[in-house]
């Protein structure tokens, strides 16, 4: 890695249920914006963030069909941050807790997201400038 600092994040919340999820992604974006390499350990419900089968939908209450609703999907946010990191010459690594994936059946993940376990979090943290953990409340 370069001389840029590496920040590790551990996150527990699933998509579509908590503002912590949005804040978490804002922090990832800000870290990349400031030139930090980013490593993420997704734990518990957060393993659903990279699930490849997330699907957008229309919304009759909004009076918009599928195409015009442009429903946000966290798998697309991850992909966007992957591209942002690559464009800046930064690393953006994402590991899902494997047991958490299995119990939720979200094994199909987007490219660039891998499977691992707590030793990966420990490795990430040990090599990082610092680690931010965001637990479920």
């Amino acid at each position, binding site marked *: 890695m370069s001389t840029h600092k590496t920040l590790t994040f551990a996150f527990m919340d699933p998509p579509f249920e908590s503002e912590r999820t949005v804040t978490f992604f804002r922090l990832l974006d800000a870290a990349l914006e400031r030139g930090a390499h980013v490593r993420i350990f997704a*734990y518990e419900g957060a393993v659903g963030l990279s699930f490849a089968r997330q699907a957008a939908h229309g919304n009759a209450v909004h009076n918009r069909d599928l195409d015009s609703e442009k429903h946000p999907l966290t798998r697309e946010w991850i992909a966007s941050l992957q591209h942002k990191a690559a464009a800046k010459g930064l690393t953006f690594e994402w590991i899902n807790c494997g047991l958490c994936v299995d119990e939720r059946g979200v094994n199909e993940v987007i490219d660039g997201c891998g499977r691992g*376990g707590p*030793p990966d979090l420990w490795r990430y*943290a040990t090599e990082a400038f610092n*680690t931010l953990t965001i*637990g479920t409340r």
Partner: protein
Amino acid sequence: MKALQVIDQAFRTTTEEQDDAILWLTRSMRGAGGDLMVLLKGHAVHYAVLTGRQPPLTLGNWQQQQPAELHRDISGLVESGVAVYAVEEDLIERGLARLPLQGGVQAIPRTRIPALYEQADQVWHW
């Protein structure tokens, strides 16, 4: 690298995961060679005085067979060399101060928390 795990959410995930997810994470990282400490604060100080398994969940004909064993998880951490602390004032506020602490768990006053934080390279607040 030494990390302090600060746990203040109690009984989070304990039914579905059959453990506390952060105690489990800590035991797993300890098994991988991690150098860790645990601070139980807020409602999580209940973990310091537990003596039995969690009651099994029953839903219709379905009954949980392996409920969480948080007292075992705490003692396992202590036996593996992880120092476990509980905040004294949080025990008192919850009427738990007169109960015996699990073996190896150390009660500390709030005034000692900054010194504990200073012992860690990273503080992970869950």
